[in-house]
């Protein structure tokens, strides 16, 4: 009798297991439909650069060659993506992937706001949305290092960081408002033939959250043993680089689901080296 009891128990357990397997909630598949993009990319040759934050004071960071979109992703391009991937539209997006201000200015799922150019950079999109777009066009988001490395260029030099007027010029560009409403290519291209790295929008990067500016920036000037611990370890050469402080503070203040009038993105791609 006991044996029968145990056999029946085991059978029951087995069947329960099977049942729960069937009843198990499958995670929602965000299957992306590929979208083609004609957007020109420029090759950024790899090299060493001194990162602004978080590294040992004298070490240089190596950035491998990569491709970067010549301009930010535009409203028109994002619309194409949405039509192929309606699960990312304003009414269907899962709240986990973007806050309630996602595409706030769009009148409906597929309607770009009237006072904003279709060729203007798309904004009010979260990091999750930016990543999804990038994946759909076979690209990815640039890393902070890649973005900062490509942004060191002014119109003539690929590395303009030695020029004292460079920071002042960037700060001046940061004063401009509402440029997210105007078409891209608002400023002359830099030496990499990349447009609008400054003065148009803030741009999402792949690893923005690895920047640990806490907002308590009086502590951010102390050197830290560990890379990112309650503050940025700043190399002494750049305490005057207010523009970089601003960018890193911005990255430290956002979370992946945040959206903002002035936050957009551009894509990158490996150079296959």
């Amino acid at each position, binding site marked *: 009798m006991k044996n029968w009891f145990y056999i029946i128990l085991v059978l029951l357990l087995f069947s329960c297991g099977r049942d729960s397997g069937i009843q198990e909630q499958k995670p929602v598949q965000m299957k992306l439909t590929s979208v083609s993009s004609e957007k020109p990319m420029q090759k950024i040759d790899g090299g060493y650069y001194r990162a602004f934050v978080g590294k040992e004071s004298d070490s240089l960071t190596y950035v491998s060659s990569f491709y970067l979109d010549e301009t930010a992703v535009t409203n028109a391009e994002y619309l194409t993506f949405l039509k192929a991937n309606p699960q990312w539209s304003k009414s269907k997006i899962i709240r986990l992937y973007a806050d309630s201000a996602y595409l706030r200015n769009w009148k409906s799922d597929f309607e770009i706001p009237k006072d904003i150019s279709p060729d203007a950079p798309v904004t009010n999109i979260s990091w999750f949305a930016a990543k999804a777009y990038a994946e759909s066009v076979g690209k990815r988001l640039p890393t902070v290092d890649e973005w900062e490395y490509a942004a060191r260029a002014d119109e003539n030099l690929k590395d303009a960081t030695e020029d004292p007027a460079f920071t002042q010029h960037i700060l001046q560009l940061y004063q401009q408002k509402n440029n997210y409403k105007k078409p891209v290519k608002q400023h002359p291209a830099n030496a990499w033939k990349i447009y609008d790295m400054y003065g148009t929008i803030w741009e999402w990067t792949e690893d923005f959250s690895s920047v640990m500016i806490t*907002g*308590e920036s009086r502590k951010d000037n102390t050197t830290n043993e560990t890379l990112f611990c309650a503050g940025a370890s700043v190399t002494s050469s750049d305490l005057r680089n207010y523009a970089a402080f*601003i960018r890193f503070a911005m990255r430290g*203040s956002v979370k992946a689901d945040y959206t*903002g009038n002035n936050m957009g993105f551009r894509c990158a791609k490996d150079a296959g080296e």
Partner: protein
Amino acid sequence: MKTKIQSLEKESKKMAVTKPVWFIAALSAIFALNACKQNPSETSAKGTDTEQITVSGNAEEAVLTSPPLVPAPVGDRSAKKLIVKLETIEKTGELADGTQYNFWTFGGTVPGSFIRARVGDEIEFHLKNNENSVFPHNIDLHAVNGPGGGAEATFVAPGQEAVFNFKALNPGLYVYHCATAPVGMHIANGMYGLILIEPEGGLPKVDKEFYIMQGDFYTKGKFGEKGLQEFDIDKAIAETPDYVVFNGSTTGLLGDKELEVKTGETVRFFVGNGGPNLTSSFHLIGEIFDRVYMEGGSKVNENVQTTVIPAGGAAIVEFKATVPGEYVIVDHALFRAFNKGALGKIKVTGADNHKVYKSNK
């Protein structure tokens, strides 16, 4: 034997006499020591006292005001739960006649809204960053006992809001300002204001109260150059401002913004110095400050001509308007007053007072 007994008796009598004396001596010694002990225990008792202050009544949303006005005094109300809502707004405004500047503000003004509370109040502080802002912001209130004065807890990207709680443990007049990197730039662009924590029972009553805050501004162009001026980081680091002004512009306390009181009125200025760099030698030409709460703290100095207000500090000054006329408010480092804009005015109207002042012209 007898003598021994006698001597013993004598001794015991001596003892009997001296015993109470010893006793009294011992008691007085203990009292004296206790008295010495009382001072430190008294001060520590004060510290823990404010922490123990209990709040009563319903939570109330604080009324904030734009400069130069201040909210109504707290009077003798008990400590309560206060809700403060402040928004950071980036806006272009007039730094001088014909000169514009991109100000970053608390509540849309430079200096930011005046916050008034009482010691023991438990404040629920909401900081919102306007969605049209380009930059992240936060707030450090010098009245807060806690890390960063609230800065870490209130770091907000554009469009976001943060809430934190603090209890006002110390009375006094305190500066608040943005502490987001680069801090100097946020403050140089106007992100500062004052929060007053009144003592129990409130400050003594006066007839008129005003809010004044000094700040230094660093522009690419020279003083008076027209058009939109940008922040100049080199000048800020060199501490060579082009503008030193009250209440965010050369005309902050001039023209239609000139202050006005009547003769016989007692006047109180809540004066702050947002800096970012300069210390102020605050003076009212033609008047003497009857009382000065030095550095915005609890100690009151009297009969002061010029009081020092450090960057990131404040002072409360009081005087009685006696003689009618126009009085000039200055930073007595005078080239700032006359060549950079650290100049304001207060008009006193009313009957002449020839006993106090008589011109024979």
